[in-house]
């Protein structure tokens, strides 16, 4: 009690000095809170509600990691980051992990010294236009004015796509969602481009969503995933295998509902290893044997998280598509828990 009082007070005073980096895991445990970088507010992926409670697809990953490491999915401090601040916040140690729909690219991993631990959402950049524009394909957008949401790889993809198709366009680079939407609805641009998931989320908020179409072309590969700093392999493993545990749980049919039952032991040795009823995999990454069970209990398995935040039953209404399990025609493929 005494230490927590002091810690809280000193943290409030602004100087949250942690013990000189023994490792991110130790830092997080000592702090008792996971600092997780998220979007400043993207419906479905990470946004606070009116009470400041964060929820969303990316946020759920943070909560799962917090549950695995700290035994409490609510011991997360969500740090809103913008497109410009996110990687610096990670490098400088302000956040322990970043779950903010960030695209995994060569340069980011090797030039910025970051580690993308996996992919939690396979996305691709698309276009949305007004229906009455009569455009059915992105190839017909020659000469169009296009609103681009800055901050990701969108501008690059857009330039590359129009260049390779020998078309011209005028970009309007918009910083925030609200401004972009206002401009698009007022007709200041013919097309709006960002990741297809973002387009769906945006369209869901329009007064008349049926008046707008998302064009079939997906012009880029956008593997979005959680990011950690390079140089701490144990921490990278924890985040990576927490993600895999969620995906594996879906594949094996482990849900938040049958979790306790499954944890007692099943006929499937893989499930037993995952949930810690036979092996103690957790000890190899500095956690206890029930880490994965807690991670799944936090928000359900990958499929449950998807359905609850961005799935067909939500206003965002995304189909699983590429993000279905590998045995159902998607790309979600957890590495075996052996």
């Amino acid at each position, binding site marked *: 009690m005494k230490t927590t009082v002091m810690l809280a007070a000193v943290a409030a005073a602004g100087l949250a000095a942690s013990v000189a980096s023994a490792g991110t895991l130790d830092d997080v445990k000592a702090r008792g809170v996971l600092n997780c970088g998220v979007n400043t*507010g993207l419906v479905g992926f990470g946004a606070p509600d009116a009470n400041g409670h964060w929820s969303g697809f990316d946020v759920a990953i943070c909560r799962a990691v917090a549950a695995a490491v700290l035994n409490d999915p609510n011991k997360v401090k969500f740090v809103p980051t913008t497109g410009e601040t996110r990687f610096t916040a990670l490098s400088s140690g302000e956040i322990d992990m970043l779950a903010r729909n960030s695209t995994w690219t060569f340069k980011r991993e090797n030039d910025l010294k970051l580690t993308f631990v996996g992919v939690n959402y396979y996305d691709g950049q698309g276009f949305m236009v007004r229906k009455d524009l009569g455009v059915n394909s992105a190839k017909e957008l020659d000469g169009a004015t296009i609103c681009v949401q800055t901050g990701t790889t969108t501008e690059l993809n857009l330039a590359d796509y129009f260049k390779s198709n020998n078309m011209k366009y005028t970009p309007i680079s918009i910083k925030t969602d609200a401004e972009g939407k206002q401009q698009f609805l007022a007709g200041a641009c013919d097309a709006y481009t960002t990741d297809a998931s973002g387009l769906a989320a945006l369209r869901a908020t329009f007064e008349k969503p049926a008046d707008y179409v998302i064009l079939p072309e997906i012009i880029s590969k956008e593997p979005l995933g959680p990011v950690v700093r390079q140089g701490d392999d144990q921490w990278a493993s924890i985040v990576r295998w927490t993600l895999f545990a969620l995906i594996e749980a879906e594949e094996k049919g482990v849900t938040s509902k049958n979790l306790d039952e499954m944890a007692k032991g099943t006929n499937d040795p893989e499930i037993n290893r995952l949930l810690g009823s036979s092996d103690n995999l957790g000890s190899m990454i500095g956690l206890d044997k029930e880490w994965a069970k807690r991670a799944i209990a936090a928000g359900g398995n990958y499929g449950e998280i998807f359905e609850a935040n961005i799935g067909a039953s939500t206003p965002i209404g995304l189909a699983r598509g590429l993000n279905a399990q590998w045995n159902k025609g998607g790309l979600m493929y957890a590495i075996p828990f052996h």
Partner: protein
Amino acid sequence: MADTDAFFRTEMLPPKEPPLSQRGVWKWMHENMFSSIGSGALTVLGILFVLYVLASAFPWFAHSVWHADSLRQCRDIVHKTWGPGTDGACWAVIRANWNLYLYGFYPMEQIWRPNLAFLLLLVALSPILFSRLPRKMIWFSACYPALAYWLIWGGTLWISVTIMAGFAVGALVLRFLGRIAGTALGVGGAVLGAVLWWLFVAAPVATALADIVPLHLTFVPSDKLGGFLLSFITGMCGIGFSLPMGILLSLGRRSDMPIIKTSCVLFIEFVRGVPLITLLFTASFLLAYFLPPGTTFDLVLRVIIMVTLFSAAYIAEVIRGGLAAIPRGQFEAADALGLDYWKAQRLIVMPQALKISIPGIVGVFIGLFKDTTLVIIVGLLDPLMGISNAVRANVAWNGVYWEPYIFAATIFFIFCFGMSRYSMYLEGKLKTDHR
């Protein structure tokens, strides 16, 4: 001929009514609105402009909806009441998100704390703003920052108390050492004493006291702060800390000591030369690089520091202008009286310089308060864009655009306009020259 009756008046004619154009409202209009053709044309244009603006904005305001649960419902009510195709303001969004706009994500059940802090702020400000109140109240104002800190962030009160005690330690050292060894050593000793107190004594004492009398409030982390509460905290801290810092900087800039002077000039010119946005970027991106590895710093605090440095440089320039306007004779008179540097500054120079600089200083404060909206670019929830984005992230209110901006504009206008009026009042009150 002789019997021609001569006619002459025996009493004066009653004065005629002045012509219509020289009387009452007509005269006033003639003089103030239509004194010439150009002036008349301008008047007509101005009136037409006002009418046009009113005519285009009025229906939207007239069709205001105050009670609704979502934007869709708002629009339905507008369409039902004033017919389809009409447009109306949906103030229900402000009602529904009132706490969000005012306090950000501050815990609901703790909202009395910022409220109390605000009330106490008014009490603490009153002896500074109005000289008729008893002077003893200034002690409360001096203690207020620690109290407000405790109220807003929570934790134990003893942290605040021990931090304030550091100042008391410094004052005591100054008093005793100053008497024995002179002011210069006294100031040095006071600073050293206070720093030593903060570094080594404050934390154990606070912990010990917290064990005996736990005056403890739930700790509220900075990321829960937002909306106008955040604007107020950054604005007030910036104002409170930048004024003393600005005074020191302006004195440093006029100092005879070349190194101090150069340092001050470099600092002032650097800060004034770069936009606030880049300083905020620095606070959020780069400051962590310049601290020992593994240390992080509360983002709100970093922003407050940057905002303070920013406005301190501007205030230093404003006060420098005030200092330049003081006749040399005043400095010479202070020297002739045998006052030392600090006494001369405190008793003779600064009261005059600050008085001259009041409009400029308040101008800087107003600018600072308005600039608190820029914290959005480092991901903090300012009342203008940050909170509005959070509101729009809620499906029920997504799509609302104008209402939050108009609401924020109104609040900013009230406070900034109030500040500028107060500065005019103060200027008039302190005016001692006879013209």
